[in-house]
């Protein structure tokens, strides 16, 4: 039963939309309106009516996907039709304009339509490709599990540093305490890590502690490797080696986690454009239709 919404019912809606697009292109080429091609010829009105009805119907997808008890076709079928008919709208709406553009709400409606469709194409693309990438990136783990693994590593690391003393303990514990995941949209989508840690610095022969970035645990690894290279005591070296192992594993898990957050975010972000732009389009479309008949 599993299959992409793109190939739903053998790509029925793809062929339906393609037929619609080809028919309207053929009609546009064949049609020789008196005067310039425009939305006011019979073909212009036809294309405009079809496009407007399509826009309203495409908007209703938001209603259908929340109507869980609806038996009006499957949501997957609706999504398949939504994607392909939405794509065909790009051609229909543009042909309706007769390629007459200007600084007015008519062109604004066209532009919003294009933006909605482009954001929708992006959405279709991420829905098609990203679930696979997310599964591959997770490698059999869940986000919750990764958190638990990291927590486990942190616990083990904080036990180990008890036998090491300063400055390793201060650095490791601060790295654990100042570790953070998430943040704003840009941090999430950019896969940025704003974690920090404390390092000891000599300032006028006075030792003080300073916060530095510990993005992807790299700084902590560098510091621990430095301590290991200066270590003369085999027991201390063994503990440091173990710490480095743990932190590297944490870094790997973190990379996986940040990737997961980023991919998940990219799968959601387009809806933040798609939905508001859709409503903006509906308002402008209403104004477009009313105004052309208001000043007929």
């Amino acid at each position, binding site marked *: 039963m599993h299959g992409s919404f793109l190939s739903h019912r053998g790509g029925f809606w793809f062929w339906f939309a393609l037929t619609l697009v080809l028919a309207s292109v053929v009609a546009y080429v064949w049609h020789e309106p*008196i*005067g*310039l091609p425009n939305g006011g010829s019979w073909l212009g009105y036809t294309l405009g009516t079809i496009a407007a009805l399509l826009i309203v119907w495409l908007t209703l997808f938001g209603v259908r996907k929340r109507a869980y008890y609806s038996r009006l076709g499957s949501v997957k079928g609706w999504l398949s039709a939504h994607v392909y008919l939405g794509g065909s709208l790009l051609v229909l709406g543009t042909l309706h304009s007769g390629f*007459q553009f*200007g600084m*007015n*709400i*008519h062109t*604004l409606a066209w532009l919003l339509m294009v933006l909605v469709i482009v954001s929708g194409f992006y959405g279709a693309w991420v829905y098609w490709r990203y679930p696979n990438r997310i599964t591959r990136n997770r*490698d*059999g*783990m*869940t986000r*919750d*599990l990764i*958190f*638990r*693994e990291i*927590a*486990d590593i942190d*616990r083990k690391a904080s036990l180990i540093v008890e036998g090491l003393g300063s400055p390793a303990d201060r650095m490791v514990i601060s790295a654990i305490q100042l*570790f*953070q*995941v*998430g*943040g704003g*949209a840009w941090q*999430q*989508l950019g896969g940025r890590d704003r974690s920090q840690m404390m390092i000891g610095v000599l300032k006028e022969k006075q030792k003080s502690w300073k916060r530095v970035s510990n993005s992807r645990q790299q700084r902590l690894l560098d510091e621990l490797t430095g301590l290991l290279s200066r270590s003369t005591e085999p027991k201390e070296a063994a503990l440091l*080696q*173990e710490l480095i*192992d*743990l932190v590297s*594993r944490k870094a*790997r*898990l973190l990379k*996986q986690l940040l990737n997961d*957050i980023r991919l*998940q975010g990219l799968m*959601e*972000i387009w*809806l*933040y454009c798609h*939905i*508001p732009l859709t*409503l*903006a389009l*509906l*308002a*402008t479309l*209403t*104004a*477009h239709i*009313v*105004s*052309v*008949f*208001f*000043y*007929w």
Partner: protein
Amino acid sequence: MYVLIRRLGAGSGQNRSYKDEELAVDQLSIGRGTDQELLLPGDRVAYQHAEISLSAGQFRVRALASTGITVNGRSCKMAVLNTGDQILIGDYRLIVIAAPDGVDLALSLEVLEQQEAFSIDPAKFVTRLDLLSRWRPRRWAWALFLLLLAAALVLPALVTLKPELQGVLRDTPLPDDSLWLSGPLHSVHSTIGKDCQACHTTPFEKVSNDTCIACHEETALHVPADHPDTGMFDGERCASCHHEHNGEQRMVFEDQRFCADCHAVLDQRMGSEPQVGRATDFHADHPPFRLSMLEWQDDSREWLQSPRLTVDKTLRDNSNLKFDHAEHLDVEGIKNNDGDWEVLSCDSCHEMALDGINMAPVKMEQHCSRCHGLAFDPADPTRVVPHGKPDQVLASLREYYSSRFIQDRADAGDIRALRPGQRDNLSQLQREGVAWVESKSQAVAQDMFERRACVSCHEVDKVSEQPPEWFVKPVRLNENWFVSGEFPHVRHTQTECADCHAASQSMEAADVLMPDIAVCQECHVGQQQKQGLLSGCISCHSYHQFEIDHAGLPKVTP
């Protein structure tokens, strides 16, 4: 290899319960996947987490999952196993125990207690993970919806619906109905400015003809006002042909289908007999040219312009002129007054009028007199009569011969004095002179009017014998061959005159030198064609053709 798995149960030390299980495998795969030899169902265990294999007499454990394994407290990827080694996989602990006989490797397996493995709360270091949780897309989507609805629909509509707000909206940066402009106005309408109501008077109604006619009241009609079928035009809109809001592009579209939709079926559309043939395309479907001729009325001595007549051999031009184009255009030339041979071309006589449409009238003084002198006395070849009415010619002759008579007698010394007491005021000499001047003048005039000068170009009627009186029929060249079409010569200067007018073969002025439609069609094709000089109806015809001021032209007879 044979592997013993000892699953440890409850209890501790020696009393601890266990269950043994023996596996015969090539290598021991460990993971949560159901295809694994040693199934560890915990969720921290990967589907394929690790495997233990035997090579060179040593058992090696190798991590397959990214989370790795811990052997004797050390995270590692790979380790050699000896008895007593501890392997941590997720929340499971495997310990290598001494292998009994018949078994290669023995492992004890126990599940670690949950709180031991998981003591730090992930929530402690996880900050917001809901993308843009503060944004609430639906809320600002609806805000955007209302904002655009107000700016693009409600405020512009108020300009019309609430005239008192017009100034406020149009004179401020607030959105007004200029947002609805589908395209800029043509510059001829730029004075209208932002006043959409100048044409769009009533919302949701098409622009009416009245708003156009309010300014364009002089616009001519397509048919005369007294045409029986003016009802055909009921419901037609100016805006059918004139499209505004396309910027500087022509507001009149040249598309021939504007005309063809009626002119293809005129006989069905009209109640009366159509005066013009069916025409839908200049090249494919256009009747042959018909010509309107000038007709001289001998009775009333006036010109009439005929209706359009079919062109054939019997159609003769009627300009009252005698003219041999072939002779005048002889490549050898033609002899002028001075006896020289002069080669003429079309533009020696025909010059374009200032309007660029027709040719300017040919003038005797300007174009003909260099060759056609009006001298009348061989003894005095420089004396000419004026190119005017017969009366003026006669008067001029009388003046000339009067002076000649006086001069001749003076030269002969024949000046007789009046005797005293003579009562007759008119002397014999005067009577003689009057008779001579009159007979000489009339003889010369008759010679000129009937045999030599005037008749070589003009039609002359002798309307009275005594006193002799002639009538020279006026000459007029037709300037209105095409009643409802216009041929601008100025736009055809790239072609030779002879390409259209076969003047060099014409020996009589009555020959009709107007070209056939096929000549035009050599360059001009209709809009149905793909290439060529695509010419719609309005290339030659005008829709608004009646009541055009044809100043100076004869009245068009119906």
